């Protein structure tokens, strides 16, 4: 028995079929996991300062290295409402709502990260 060490047409057919299979697997099972998040983690200087549930509207003021950053939780999201930085990039990031979303006021060393990110559900049993 010999096996030809040269690529053959059959190889390409096999690779093509396997690729179609992989593509089908993506269609069937690939689910980007970033659904609506349920909790915001607030960090100051890298340490966790607060945990905010996103379904309860609230505002939180945290003292960073150059002043006070004001965070607002509303409609299941969180945003920097104000921050003592010059460019206000954090404020312009707007509302964060999905798992793994994050925003930071780097000059003030304040950052926010969202966790939870579960898919939403068709119905709730209780």
């Amino acid at each position: 028995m010999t096996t030809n060490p040269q690529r053959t047409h059959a190889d390409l057919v096999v690779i093509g079929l396997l690729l179609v299979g992989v593509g089908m697997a993506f269609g069937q099972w690939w689910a980007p996991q970033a659904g609506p998040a349920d909790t915001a983690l607030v960090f100051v200087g890298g340490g966790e300062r607060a945990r905010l549930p996103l379904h309860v509207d609230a505002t939180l003021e945290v003292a960073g290295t150059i002043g006070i950053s004001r965070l607002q939780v509303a409609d299941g999201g969180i945003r920097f409402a104000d921050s003592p930085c010059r460019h206000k990039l954090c404020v312009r990031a707007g509302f964060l709502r999905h798992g793994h979303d994050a925003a930071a006021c780097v000059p003030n060393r304040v950052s926010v990260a969202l966790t939870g990110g579960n898919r939403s559900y068709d119905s709730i049993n209780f």
Partner: protein
Amino acid sequence: MRSAQQQDALIGWFAALAVVIHIFEAGLPSPVPGIKPGLANVITLVVLARHGLAAALWVGALRVLAGSLVIGTFLTPTFALSAGGAIASLAVLALAAKWNQVAPSNAQLSLLGMGCLAAVAHMSAQFVLAWRLFVPHPGLLSLLPVLLLAALLFGICTGWLANALVREAAKLAPPPVAA
């Protein structure tokens, strides 16, 4: 024709080589758990091409056994995964080798196609085992497409590499069983 002793020694050498690669790979950091190049399969493929199916099966089986003994995962869940993957990929290789015996010459597979089939079979079996036995978590299923794509890409690499090695080896020494 080689003697049985020579054949055993050959299998031993190739298995040892595969074990070394296997251990080397086990030490590599992996960005995603479950994704590994599977370079040791290159050896299995080369042996398949040059020394036939039986020798390749031996090398594959010895590699898993000896490799797990050396790394210390023998009879652990990791070993079950490794063995399951190896059994599936060797079974697919055996089928592909049978196919080459009966197929017309223009429909024969080279190590490239075989390597891809083996890699995908290896990954599929490992995934099913991991999912059924260890973490029956529906969320894991969404990882499967990524794992399969990685397996296919690595399969192309190992298959191509095996083809190249066999071509180079043929320049040095003619294939021993091709008579």
